[in-house]
């Protein structure tokens, strides 16, 4: 008797069997490439400064630059930011910056700060590309820096790290609904795989519900940057922050709905990194109040 295709339901989450359902029934073995990965500890740097924005939410560029330096130093363990950037990007690279351009966009100031940091280590301006939007753009790059803004998403639970490459699929609508679990496969496409050198999440003013359309009731000045090289670990930390903020807002658990199945699938099915908090080491620097971690 052929195997029946299992559907993912609420019951899988209650039973904690979602990973197994995703891995074996929904996709079949052909998608499980890379799922036998080792599970090293993944480092995620969380750097915050309450002065990075004023009451009008205008960004203080100097403070932001300092936060960026701290993020990269925390992540690499190097003495200074120049040395730190040099371990991530080589002088020969053509670097694609993949920011979120629309609906709770990445702050322009952050994109600009990264450009300056890259030029400081000798990457010429012409080899720093804005690479969001199409496969053609990403094919020209040898290195990518993903710069999504932190937000919940009404279709996928969270719409930050994994979703940031959706346009590289050439068919974004193919990743809606249950297929949002497959967002991780985009990171394994030949023109994308292995190029991401850094994930740097703009968590200055995140959105914890109703995304991607902005609802200011659910935005708050977290005033942070979240950096890592493991996209799943970074997404998992982002998810924790969003969930804790939701709990704080309602005073009771307020789980993301629908649950963000793409995160566990990115780990268990696509082998992109770890979604298990116990395997993630968080290096925090700066403002501690309402850290939510």
């Amino acid at each position, binding site marked *: 008797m052929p195997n029946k295709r299992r*559907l*993912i*339901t*609420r*019951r899988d*989450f*209650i*039973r904690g069997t979602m990973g197994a359902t995703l891995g074996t029934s929904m996709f079949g073995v052909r998608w499980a490439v890379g799922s036998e990965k080792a599970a090293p500890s993944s480092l995620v740097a969380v750097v915050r400064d309450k002065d990075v924005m004023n009451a*009008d*939410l205008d960004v203080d560029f100097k403070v932001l630059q300092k936060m960026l330096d701290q993020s990269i130093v925390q992540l690499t363990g190097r003495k200074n930011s120049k040395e730190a950037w040099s371990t991530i990007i080589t002088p020969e690279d053509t670097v694609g910056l993949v920011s979120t351009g*629309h*609906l709770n966009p990445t702050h322009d100031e952050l994109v600009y700060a990264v450009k300056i940091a890259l030029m400081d280590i000798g990457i010429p301006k012409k080899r720093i590309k804005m690479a969001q939007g199409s496969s053609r753009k990403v094919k020209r790059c040898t290195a990518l820096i993903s710069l999504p803004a932190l937000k919940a*998403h*009404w*279709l*996928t639970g969270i*719409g930050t790290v994994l979703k940031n490459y959706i346009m590289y699929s050439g068919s*974004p*609508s193919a990743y*809606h*609904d*249950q297929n*949002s*679990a497959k967002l991780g496969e985009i990171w394994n496409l030949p023109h994308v795989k292995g190029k991401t050198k850094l994930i740097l999440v703009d968590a200055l003013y995140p959105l914890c519900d*109703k*995304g*991607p*359309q*902005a*609802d*200011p*009731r659910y*935005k708050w000045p977290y005033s942070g940057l979240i950096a890592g090289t493991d996209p799943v670990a970074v997404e998992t930390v982002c998810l924790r922050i969003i969930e804790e903020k939701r709990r704080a807002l309602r005073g009771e658990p307020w789980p993301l*709905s*629908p*649950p963000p*199945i793409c995160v566990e699938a990115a780990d268990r099915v696509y082998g992109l990194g770890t979604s298990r908090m116990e395997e993630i080491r968080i290096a925090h620097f700066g403002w501690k109040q309402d850290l939510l971690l």
Partner: protein
Amino acid sequence: MKVHKPNLPKTIGVWTRPDSPRIINSRNIFEYMNGAGELYLAYRFNHLEVYEYKADDAKSILVELYYMETSDDAFGLLSLDWGGEHVSFSDSPANTSNQSLTSSARALYGAGLLRIWSNNLYCRVMAFRETPASKQAVLSLGKTIAANRKSPPGPELLKILPLDIGMGWKLRNDRIGYFRSHLVLNSLYYLSHQNILNLDLSTEAIAAPYDSIDGKDRKRVQFLFVRYEDSGQAQQALDNFHKAYLPEHEKDFALGSVTKSQSFFKIEDGWLGYKVYGPCIALVFECPDENSARMIIEQIQFNLLKTGG
């Protein structure tokens, strides 16, 4: 049907709008708002008109007018979040039919965002930076939008919801959601990433939690009610739901048999019950015991008979 279109002022306070709006339809909505467009297409969406009011020394105010096919669809969009400060634009009392169920709100304001249900129009008026001046401008624009428009009651389907069930369960009227799509259902109450209840634009549904009021342990059950075009579609949907959600009961399951009587099942998060009433299905989830599930389903049946449904 002649539809009254809001006549938005060219300037309000320090803000000025362009002469004509940006028009968004179902073909280009994703260019405007990416995946957020799915939300509006999950209802009967006609088109969207967008105005951005700009000022030299203040952040913009965005006005989005979503023209829906029916008032129920516009209501559905507002029903996704009953939070915020209630705003009334009417000098006379609004038609209050069904409103005890849904917070009686037609406009809600919070942190710079005003959301309005006005007949077949759903509106979002949002100041990118909330200040006393921007709040005044946002509310003034809201008043203009709602002026001279009809205020029909909420969807008929809401009438089947009892405010209280027995002595123990009270409707959370600030959590009632009206929808037609499983994507919206999942944002209110996650059931499955697949469309296991066969929802589409021809169906209408409500999700409504009930809280236990007996004091000791706070408990919430989730009630869903779906109306299909005909009883055949309802039966097919229930068959589909049963196979997907209750696969271990497949042995007892024969096509059509699930519709003959109400059914109750103990699963991981409590008791689940369902019953078909002609073209409608009632489902209740997370009940602490079978009796609660039965009581809720029976109360719905009573309300259906009462309302002639």
